[in-house]
């Protein structure tokens, strides 16, 4: 069904939204980037980092209980997870985890190289650096970390990055351990893989300074690039993940978690903005009906017997297996559950999500309600329910089914969510969906979930250490990009090359040798990628060797085509001999010394004579044949385009190499 059909008339479709529309609703977005660091080992133990496997040798079972914060409070998220009563299963593989990750050994001292990288990124973000790190435990009771908390620490606060004509403020930079990956979550059992657990990552957090979804995506891109410009962070699937914080005027900060593609960000923000506006509208409707958090009335009833003969399949099947069916009646809520919130999503999904996540009724559909136009119970069943529960025309009924305990939890959650509806936008952590909408994940945790880690002492950040890192900071990626552009680098390569460790080399080659920037970029990006695919290790070539090869080209010792040949030869040399190799040796071994045009012209004459007797269908075929003959002799020693041009001229045509 088309989403637009459900959308409130005030809220335009995604592609029609303009900056002014977002300004009108008071959109504010912030970002948290989770960027894995390129360290050999994990952050608090000596397990290898970045080794992933789906295999496992054993499973461990744990449960989580909430604990008090340092200031003596229970965290809301913690209490929510407690209600879910999940069995958490961890799959462990002997190569990727030790007893630390599954919480049977205290932490080892922090990984110093991870700390150096984090200091580097903190300096790039212009943060006010702390002088002493305090490791905190950030509670995660969903089980994604076996300890029940993430070890995390803050390196600095209140920095900024430039964006357009203003500054985007950076709230803080954290250094922390990565969590498990969820394998499945059904009913009361959640399964995790532990290979990624404990890997070092940094988390830059911005203030909510972005005003449109596109700005948020731009800034995410900038932050990701900034991290990558160090050359010391991981890349590839899952190596960087974004959380997006969204609020509209009158709404609440809601965190959308685990966005792996920056391209998804604008659509996700749009939907959340739409949802918050819808929730505010629903609150106002309720208010106009006299429903406030204090006056809301919810009652739940066991209606298993009323529905013992119901034909609606999910309920029929559940009842036949001995399940309980409960009905929550919310007074004055008629029609509310069908209010649109996000694209193709109505308010009822807020209830369904909570019931799924907290009451563990994971098989969908897990609720039906009397506002729904879709087919479920028969009119007779609804009527019987109304009678049994005393539901009036202005009220809404929500049905849940499952075990006695789970349906009780579900009714409690429905009551809680209905009460929140009268308040407005609850503080949630929400999950990003592929279609750009989002669903409930957990209650947004607050500062109360932080607790000092008593297993590790504070770590002093020596000012000399900061100075050392500062002296080796990479150039700001946007500055380097600008220099690359000014050097004539085509836009298609700007992103890749300015993040690459060969970005500086590119600038040297172009500026000092006056090499064609496109040619240099193609060699340094595409050809080097091809070397990798061939199993060669181009990283073995030092910048100086590569520079010398280009210099030989600039000096006329190697033709354009020969450059890649020489590089490959040098690479083979590197593999066999010492890394210090002489480019001129390669040149003489390969015999790539350029052929002069006169020599080629003579060869063309010779070839034409030899092929005089042969017959060709078309002139094009003849050209192609002769090019093959000629290039066999001089490939790499002269530009192919030049040969084609000369040959074309001799054949009386104007073909260029491309056309041939």
């Amino acid at each position, binding site marked *: 069904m088309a989403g637009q059909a459900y959308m409130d008339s005030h809220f335009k479709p995604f592609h029609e939204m303009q900056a002014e529309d977002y300004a009108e609703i008071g959109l504010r977005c912030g970002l948290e980037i989770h960027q894995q660091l390129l360290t050999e080992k994990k952050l608090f133990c000596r397990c290898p980092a970045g080794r992933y496997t789906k295999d*496992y*040798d*054993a*499973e*461990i*079972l*744990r*449960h*989580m*209980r*909430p*604990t*008090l*914060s*340092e*200031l*003596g409070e*229970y965290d809301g998220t*913690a209490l929510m997870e407690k209600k879910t009563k999940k069995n958490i*299963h961890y799959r462990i593989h*002997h190569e990727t985890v030790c*007893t630390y990750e*599954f*919480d*049977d*050994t205290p932490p080892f001292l922090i990984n110093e190289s991870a700390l150096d990288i984090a200091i580097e990124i903190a300096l790039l973000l212009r*943060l*006010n*650096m*702390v*002088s*002493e*790190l*305090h490791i*905190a435990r*950030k*509670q995660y*009771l969903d089980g994604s970390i*076996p*300890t*029940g*908390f993430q070890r995390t*620490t*803050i390196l600095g*606060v*209140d920095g900024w990055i430039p964006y357009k004509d203003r500054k985007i403020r950076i*709230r*803080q930079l*954290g250094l922390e351990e990565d969590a498990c990956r969820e394998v499945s979550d059904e009913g009361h059992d959640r399964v995790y893989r532990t290979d990624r657990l404990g890997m070092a990552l940094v988390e830059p957090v911005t203030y909510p300074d972005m005003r449109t979804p596109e700005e948020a995506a731009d800034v995410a891109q900038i932050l990701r690039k900034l991290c990558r410009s160090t050359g010391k962070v991981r890349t590839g699937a899952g190596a960087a993940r974004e959380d997006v914080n969204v609020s509209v005027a009158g709404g609440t900060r809601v965190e959308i978690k685990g966005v792996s593609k920056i391209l998804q960000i604008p659509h996700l923000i749009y939907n959340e903005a739409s949802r918050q506006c819808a929730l505010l509208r629903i609150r106002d409707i309720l208010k106009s009906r006299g429903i406030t958090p204090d006056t809301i009335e919810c009652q739940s009833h066991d209606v298993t017997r009323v529905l013992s003969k119901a034909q609606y399949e999910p309920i029929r099947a559940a009842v036949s297996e001995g399940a309980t069916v409960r009905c929550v009646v919310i007074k004055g809520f008629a029609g509310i559950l069908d209010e649109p919130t996000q694209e193709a999503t109505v308010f009822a999904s807020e209830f369904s999500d909570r019931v799924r996540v907290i009451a563990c009724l994971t098989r969908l559909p897990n609720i039906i309600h009397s506002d729904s136009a879709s087919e479920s119970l028969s009119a007779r069943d609804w009527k019987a329910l109304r009678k049994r529960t005393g539901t009036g025309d202005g009220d809404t009924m929500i049905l849940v089914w499952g075990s006695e305990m789970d349906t009780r939890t579900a009714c409690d959650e429905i009551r809680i969510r209905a009460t929140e509806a009268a308040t407005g936008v609850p503080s949630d952590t929400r999950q990003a969906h592929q279609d750009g909408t989002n669903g409930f994940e957990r209650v947004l945790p*607050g*500062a*109360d*979930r*932080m*607790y*000092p880690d*008593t297993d590790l*002492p*504070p770590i*002093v950040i020596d000012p000399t250490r900061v100075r050392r890192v500062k002296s080796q900071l990479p150039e700001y990626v946007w500055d380097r990009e600008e220099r690359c552009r000014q050097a004539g680098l085509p836009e298609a390569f700007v992103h890749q090359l300015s993040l690459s460790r060969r970005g500086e080399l590119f600038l040297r080659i172009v500026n000092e040798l006056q090499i064609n920037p496109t040619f240099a970029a193609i060699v340094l990006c595409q050809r080097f990628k091809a070397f990798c695919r061939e199993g060669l290790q181009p990283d073995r070539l030092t910048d100086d060797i590569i520079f010398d090869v280009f210099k030989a080209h600039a000096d006329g010792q190697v033709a354009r085509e020969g450059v890649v040949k020489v590089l490959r030869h040098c690479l083979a040399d590197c593999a066999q001999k010492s890394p210090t190799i002489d480019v001129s040796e390669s040149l003489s071994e390969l015999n790539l010394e350029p052929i002069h045009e006169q020599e080629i012209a003579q060869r063309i004459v010779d070839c034409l004579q030899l092929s005089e007797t042969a017959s060709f269908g078309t002139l094009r075929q003849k050209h192609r044949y002769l090019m093959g003959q000629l290039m066999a002799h001089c490939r790499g020693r002269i530009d192919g385009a030049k040969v084609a041009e000369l040959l074309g001229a001799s054949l009386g045509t104007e073909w260029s190499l491309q056309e041939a």
Partner: protein
Amino acid sequence: MSEDKFRGYRGPGKNILSEHGVGVWSDVEIESTNGDFRGLILPRSETADDRHIVLKLDSGYNIGLASDTITKMTEVGRCEAHYKIPEKEFPRDPAKPNVTLLGTGGTIASRLDYRTGAVIPAFSPGELYGSVPELADICNLSTEKLFGVFSENMGPVQWTALAKRIGEEIENGADGIVIGHGTDTMHHTAAILSFMVQDSPVPIVMVGSQRSSDRPSSDAAINLINSVRTAAEGDIAEVMVCMFGPTSDQYCLLHRGTRVRKMHSSYRSTFRTIGDVPLAMIDQEGITYLKSEYKHRREDRNVKINTAYNEKVTVLYYYPGMQPDVIDAVIEKGYRGIVIAGTGLGHVNKPCYPALGRAQNAKVHVYMTVQTLWGYCGMYVYETGRELMDLGVVPCANMLPEVAFVKLGWALGQSDDPEEVKRIMLTPVVDEITEREPYNGYLLYQGEIPEVQEFIRTIKR
């Protein structure tokens, strides 16, 4: 008062706070050479250096700022933290058994100590009910904090007081006793209580945790629930240790107090029964008894408390090249008993013989145990063993070294007569010496062996 205002701060850290008229719990704005900061000043751990102040940011994170970078601090508010487990009155139900929880310390229930930055124990029935409400389904709980010490600080004084208190509680009608204890020396206390408290009509269950209860993944709650259930409902009227069986949250094991030992510095499943099988498993479904011979619960109150103890006892852990002067030093310092943890079947080197002879002459009681932990002394097998016995060294069969140590202290508290002491030592009270070692009393699986890997893969560990 000013002491409290600068809690944990000394030297430059304290000076900078004092200079700017701020203190612990001040909400401050700080200007420093590293930029501006805002947060709540927290107490500082006394073991941390004196050059930093600790700030709690709004985000909940703590950071440290070097005092010599701070140029200005302005108090903009105050917010004092009161760390408190929500206390609720423990419900009483006359139909439920009465269990007494005696606290000695350890991390079974704990809270953060700002001064040391470490966790310190804290409990009351109300606090326990607030954090482990399941307990109220099992029993009526009364608690008493006897000491608040880490288990390495437990010793004869505490053992004696604890044994006496247990006797009183039993006489007062308790249906079971639970003892909260740090795990490091839990097996020493379990052993001595097995000797000092005999013929108990009710279970005496020791419990602790390997992960403190301020962690969401703590084993404390499950250990506590299972130990309280054992005390309330169990049939084994002995001193036991109730701790995690596997590292997974599945069941606890009940270990006999004289055969149990902490075997890993940090695993949850650290406690193992050595040279025998555990008494029972316990989980939410109930108790599964693994041994048929144990002392059953009774209705009477006829417990025998014998807290005699002589502290001049030591353990010598033999190592190759041990010099006899170690033994001489012990004798000279007036020690009355020595337990040797010998190699193999119970051996020490020849150079120690003269010193052992001098011990014999000084009427010092010398007993032999094995540092292999599993297995019996076998001092007839080799010449060395026979020579040692001629020097008055008495083999303790398969008594664990720590158990022999506390038992010798207890025996010497009752007599100094070699024959009587030997009679006490070698007469088992509760399986500290067993006649037989079952074939499955020594199981140490080794990883990577195919059948072991298969087994591990298919069970929760």
